[in-house]
């Protein structure tokens, strides 16, 4: 039993055929310039001559269009092989940006995004993005360079135990110890990221392996045994759940991110409409059903709508699809949907009864199981009265905000202005904080894969690189006219705004709307509510002038201070063909409401700060 990722020599019993390569004795030098001579004039998929070419051939064979990354010593052989590849590569300013861009690319395109980084700091800079993808079940493949195998474990220059560091935040990760199999490993990792419940995978690529001679081209990529689950739920379980739904008086659908990942939006809409069951979503489930639909109560949870949280509180049959019942959704478990029997559809058996007990567990693919259920339900639940109540809650708890003359511009107004000025297929990305909540609350989402955000990990700084990944995906899919809007906060924007240089270099048509309240606003809101207004480290009145900074990067920069400037600025930015940054100076004191206090009951949401 060899149980250490730091002893990859055992993976490579024959020894590495380039370990003694004098051309790279220092382990950090240029790739072997003689390695590629005979290969690149033909179809690169058919023949390979090095491990790095096998890696790239595997990406091509898997259908990867684009990779995002940053160069570096240990990954240089792979980059050299990309030189002749059909896979496009976008150089990012920082590896964290590469991971988020790949993540968002995958969300929009519906296939795994690919990111690359070198060993050591390159790999550790990816970690936040990998953890983000893991928490949101986003399919992504990370390829990291590693020091040559003979140096692994010796604390060599730019060495990190990447497999060890990323083990708890990947679906699976690999140390590719042999050139002859490295292509197959990459193909398997790409496939594994997308089967069943999606998630990030990583392949660590020692430099001697990618430099080594091999003619072993990757075979057809297959998922490892046992990782591609049966899409169908057990028929008996479906029948039992169908009876429970038929008999419900107050049925409610809760559609999660799994509906989006499983491309089950059509099935979800058909299910809700067929049986006229009201719908709430989770935040990652935004877009699974059109929020303008009569049956849709928008999203539930800490800052969800009052009507969604009232419906969750009073339902007697919760049909939850593709959700893991995160604490930001449930509030306190003891008061979550307290009267509901729970029908839980999920592809991952481990999510069943993990946080909320499932009375009717249905393990399978979201769309397939919803179709099974549709076929099994003989008569729709008798829920006229319940639908009336849901409509009443929508009237009682509307999502509104005030726009008094004597107060600064309200951030919600900016979100609504963009929503009105753009089409339904517009992609919205965000950072994390107050602006993220307003972007989800005051934009009416209609389509899946148009809401791209960091949910589970809550990564400030996600928005800018995610917008780049989303833009590239839309362009690759042949939708250059789709708008991509990044709503960001001043704090979030400051964390990853160096990626603006990439948007300028690639001439990416993105509008960055910074809702600048000169606070790390969600923290300021909590300090006012729970820490007696002591604004420790939350005051951000030291921000640069983002419009001027945008101009310095080569982007369009606009500053907005008042209501009458909003519409012209939105129009100018949307018409501008390239990256535009609008620095909206908004009301610093505006709070995100409604709010279910952490651990509180969904139905007890506060409508003002005083009620917290």
């Amino acid at each position: 039993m060899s149980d250490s990722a730091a002893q990859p020599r055992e993976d490579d019993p024959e020894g590495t055929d380039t370990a003694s390569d004098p051309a790279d004795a220092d382990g950090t030098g240029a790739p072997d310039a003689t390695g590629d001579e005979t290969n690149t004039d033909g179809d690169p998929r058919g023949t390979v001559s090095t491990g790095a070419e096998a890696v790239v051939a595997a990406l091509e064979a898997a259908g990867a269009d684009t990779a995002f990354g940053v160069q570096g010593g240990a990954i240089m052989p792979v980059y050299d092989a990309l030189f002749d590849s059909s896979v496009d590569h976008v150089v990012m300013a920082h590896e964290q940006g590469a991971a988020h861009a790949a993540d968002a690319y995958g969300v929009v395109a519906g296939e795994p995004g690919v990111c690359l980084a070198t060993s050591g700091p390159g790999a550790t800079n990816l970690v936040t993005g990998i953890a983000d993808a893991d928490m949101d079940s986003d399919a992504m493949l990370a390829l990291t360079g590693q020091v040559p195998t003979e140096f692994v474990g010796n604390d060599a220059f730019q060495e990190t135990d990447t497999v060890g560091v990323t083990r708890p935040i990947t679906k699976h990760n690999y140390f590719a110890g042999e050139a002859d199999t490295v292509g197959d490993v990459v193909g398997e990792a790409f496939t594994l990221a997308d089967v069943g419940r999606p998630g990030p995978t990583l392949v660590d690529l020692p430099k001697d392996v990618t430099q080594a001679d091999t003619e072993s081209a990757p075979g057809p990529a297959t998922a490892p045994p046992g990782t591609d689950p049966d899409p169908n739920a057990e028929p008996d379980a479906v029948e039992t759940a169908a009876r429970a739904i038929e008999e419900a008086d107050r049925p409610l659908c809760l559609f999660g991110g799994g509906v989006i990942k499983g491309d089950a939006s059509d099935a979800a809409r058909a299910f809700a409409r067929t049986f006229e069951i009201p719908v709430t979503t989770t935040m990652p489930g935004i877009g699974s059903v059109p929020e303008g639909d009569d049956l849709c109560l928008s999203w539930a949870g800490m800052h969800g709508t009052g009507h969604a949280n009232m419906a969750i509180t009073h339902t007697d049959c919760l049909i939850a699809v593709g959700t893991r019942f995160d604490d930001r959704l449930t509030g306190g478990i003891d008061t979550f949907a307290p009267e509901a029997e729970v029908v839980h559809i999920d592809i991952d058996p481990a999510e069943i009864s993990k946080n909320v007990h499932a009375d009717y567990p249905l393990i399978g693919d979201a769309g397939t199981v919803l179709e099974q259920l549709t076929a099994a339900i003989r008569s729709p639940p008798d829920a006229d009265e319940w639908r009336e109540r849901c409509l009443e809650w929508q009237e009682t708890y509307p999502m509104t905000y005030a726009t008094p003359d004597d107060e600064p511009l309200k951030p919600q107004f900016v979100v609504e202005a963009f929503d009105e000025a753009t089409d339904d297929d517009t992609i919205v990305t965000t950072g994390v904080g107050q602006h993220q909540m307003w972007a989800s609350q005051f934009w009416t989402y209609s389509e899946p894969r148009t809401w791209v955000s960091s949910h589970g990990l809550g990564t400030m700084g996600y928005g800018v690189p995610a917008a780049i990944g989303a833009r590239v995906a839309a362009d690759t899919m042949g939708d250059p006219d789709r708008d991509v809007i990044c709503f960001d906060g001043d704090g979030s924007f400051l964390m990853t705004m160096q990626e603006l240089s990439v948007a300028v270099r690639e001439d990416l048509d993105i509008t960055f709307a910074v809702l600048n309240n000169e606070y790390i606003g969600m923290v300021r809101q909590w300090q006012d509510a729970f820490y007696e207004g002591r604004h420790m480290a939350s005051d951000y009145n030291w921000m640069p002038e983002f419009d001027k900074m945008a101009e310095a990067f080569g982007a369009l920069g606009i500053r907005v201070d008042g209501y009458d400037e909003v519409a012209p600025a939105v129009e100018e930015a949307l018409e501008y063909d390239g990256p535009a940054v609008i620095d909206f100076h908004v009301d610093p004191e505006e709070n995100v409401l409604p709010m279910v206090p952490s651990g509180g009951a969904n139905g007890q949401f506060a409508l003002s700060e005083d009620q917290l």
Partner: protein
Amino acid sequence: MSGEGTTDGTNEMPGPAPEERPHPEGRRNLEGHRVDPAVEAQHDSRRAVLSALVEDEPGVLARVSGLVSRRQFNIESLTVGPTTVEGHSRITMVVEETDPGIDQIEKQIAKLKPVISVGEVSGNAVTSELVLLKIHGAEPDKVHAVTEMYDGRTLDAGPETITVRLTGDESKIDDALDAFEQFGIIEIARTGQTALARGNVPTAPGEKPGTAGEPTTPTSD
């Protein structure tokens, strides 16, 4: 959703205050079960022996043990060793958890790619542990007698210390350690429990002799 101002300009949304809203009487317990106040479902933790058949690849033990620690499962022991199938290992774990907790451990371990199959070994499984004990050697005759009594074996004996090997199930080992306590135990090394199911029952679900490369068996129900 409309941006028309309807309030007096404070940070406030319309609607009845929290205390004015109806809220159901019911509630759930910590495991998310709806609670019937008359029959509150209480889950006591219990010991369970889990057996996992895994592919013997680098890092597999780190994957399993890392998962157990990250998800805060209570684990008493964990042993690893090869099986009759080349490339396969068996990991045996003793955990102390509630029934839902044991269910979660099984499901989370089953998701690990190198795990071929995992499940709880039935209650009447054959279990055994090996213990090495170093005892003060002042009373060699008495130590020898206790060693004999528990079918142990003396591996090393000197003027100051005696080292004894014991094997057996948990209750036998516990009894033996109590008996040796009187001499003064200097050092102890324990392997942790290993286990096999009795008779024709496979130890890990779906396990058959000599089946390399079998797919991971989902352990959900």
